[in-house]
């Protein structure tokens, strides 16, 4: 085995998976609060454009990422108002968000097509990046790769250890009870939707800032849907989102290298795998109905304040 090749493949897998980690975590935080947002794809592409435009204007990476996050939070707040305030159907509203985001990015982004974003610096982790094979593969990345993993830790800590996280989960499990206990179901969901939207948009911005420093309309190419699948696959747990994202990323990279490995089946069969695996995972989770593995109890249900 050529270790140099192995190392660069692992490196590429991390790069391919990072948008999915962010977007998956963004979907996860919303779903734990009981909100099913089918607009992740739209949030990602708007984030991709916002980050790209900021980088082209000469701002540093941090500003580009913040711009993407802000754009995502703003767009997600449209969804939040419709679903939480106007009791709009969440499934259709999410879909509208995806359509709107894709269209808006195509419209506003046409002026940026063909330009390239500046290269993002690599943050090699001291000492560790000198290690053979894994040094390049794991410890010599752009800051966003590390941030994505850090975010999973933060979200895990938030959901599992903090009081606010407990309340968020309560709202997701049973919004009627949470309301009866005096928690603001709509306020908490609003925060979950906007922060989740920001995360999804950061995931999108990774595409234009690092992965392919270009903007093309429709470039998210269904990653938003994969992110939604990922959350189910991960049975609503942050670390499993990372594991799932890397698995999905591996499939993508494996596809590109399949010829080199002497695999001659059409690439499309491999591309189907993530979707089929998700359906299987969904069936297994739903069928067993084990405690802690199942979907949040109020997921996708409309909450109305009764007086």
């Amino acid at each position: 085995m050529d270790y140099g090749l192995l190392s660069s493949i692992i490196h590429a897998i991390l790069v391919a998976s990072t948008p999915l980690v962010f977007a998956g975590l963004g979907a996860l935080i919303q779903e734990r609060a009981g909100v099913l947002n089918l607009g992740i794809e739209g949030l990602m592409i708007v984030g991709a454009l916002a980050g790209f435009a900021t980088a082209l204007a000469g701002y540093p990476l941090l500003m580009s990422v913040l711009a993407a996050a802000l754009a995502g939070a703003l767009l997600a707040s449209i969804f939040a108002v419709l679903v939480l305030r106007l009791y709009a159907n969440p499934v259709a509203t999410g879909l509208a968000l995806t359509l709107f985001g894709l269209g808006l990015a195509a419209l506003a982004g046409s002026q940026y097509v063909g330009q390239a974003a500046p290269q993002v610096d690599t943050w090699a982790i001291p000492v560790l990046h000198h290690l053979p094979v894994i040094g390049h593969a794991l410890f010599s990345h752009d800051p966003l790769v590390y941030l994505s993993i850090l975010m999973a830790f933060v979200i895990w800590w938030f959901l599992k250890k903090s009081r606010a996280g407990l309340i968020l989960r309560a709202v997701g499990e049973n919004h009627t009870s949470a309301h009866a206990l005096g928690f603001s179901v709509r306020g908490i969901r609003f925060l979950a939707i906007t922060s989740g939207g920001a995360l999804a948009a950061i995931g999108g911005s990774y595409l234009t800032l690092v992965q392919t420093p270009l903007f093309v309309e429709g470039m998210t190419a269904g990653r938003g849907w994969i992110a939604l699948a990922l959350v189910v696959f991960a049975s609503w747990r942050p670390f499993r989102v990372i594991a799932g994202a890397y698995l999905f990323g591996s499939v993508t990279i494996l596809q590109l290298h399949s010829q080199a490995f002497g695999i001659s089946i059409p690439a499309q069969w491999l591309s189907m795998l993530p979707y089929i695996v998700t359906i299987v995972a969904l069936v297994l989770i739903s069928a067993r109905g084990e405690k802690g593995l199942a979907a949040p109890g109020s997921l996708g249900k409309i909450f109305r304040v009764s007086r």
Partner: protein
Amino acid sequence: MIFVEARAVTRWYHEWIAVLIALILTVATASALLASLGLDPVSSLHRIFIRPLNSVYGVSELLAKATPLITIGVALALGFRAGVWNIGAEGQLVMGGLCGGAVALAFWGVDGFWVMPLILLGGTLGGLVWGAIPAFLKVRFNANEILVSLMLTYVAILMLSVMVHGPLRDPAGFNFPESRLFHDAATLPKLFSAGRGHLGFVFALMFAVLGTWVVKRWHLGFEMRVTGLSPTAAKFAGYSRDRTVWMALLIGGAVSGFAGVVEVTGNIGQLVPNISPSYGFTAIIVAFLARLHPLAVIPAGLLVALSYLAGEAAQLSLGIPAASTQVFQGLLLFFLLGTSLLVNYRIRFGRIG
């Protein structure tokens, strides 16, 4: 303080007033967007929405685009009434196109009155199977039909891609990922001398009438409506939730599959890797625009089809990308959903109580 209050009486026209408000808001927002791009809204809107209809060709194209939207919109309206969220009509359409197209290619060059019905049947069955999968998984394992049908959409699109890159590729096609052109007996007749409007539009109208009949007159339609409006009431009445899920997804799958095979035999004339510009997803907007009334799906489908033409016109005459038509579609759906609150509630100013 602004708050909403349930209406004591809901009149039939409340729904359509809400739709009208949504349409006005959409046009207003679209105008503002165009103005922000430095374009004159009135003349731009005229150029992209009115001018494409100024010819037989334009009308014919409109009907071609409205055909799958109306066909699928009717089926989705039925399913959504029952509270079954079939988001995968796009995949069912692609599967229908693939299976029907495969039948057409298997009987390539064979003439006979039975060829076309057989092709349509093949496509319908393909869609039916693709709709049956989420139904089975929902009923048997309680797997969320939204996610399963959505995932299956991508599987279907990839399967079509495998087939046109491989087994169904035209042997004399210089390795292009396209099937050979269907022969005449496997092609639906055109409606006009210009454009791509085809017989499928007549089928679509028939579906809308049939759908209305199912909703208004069939007990099945009543059962599905009750299940959607109040699952508890449906349970007390002894209506089976499983049966409703099966019916909604089987109807949705079969009809979307039919729309797919009609699209390839009527409009495209061969199998290509990309047979639908998201008709299956856009049909969801159509169903909502029609407020889930099958007959109202006809004007709703025509209007949304116009947004596709408008996108093309915008690209040609204004130089803005055709994909921006999705801004319009997204806005329309946002406003429709937002204003639907006005049907059952009214906005009051003042103190609660």
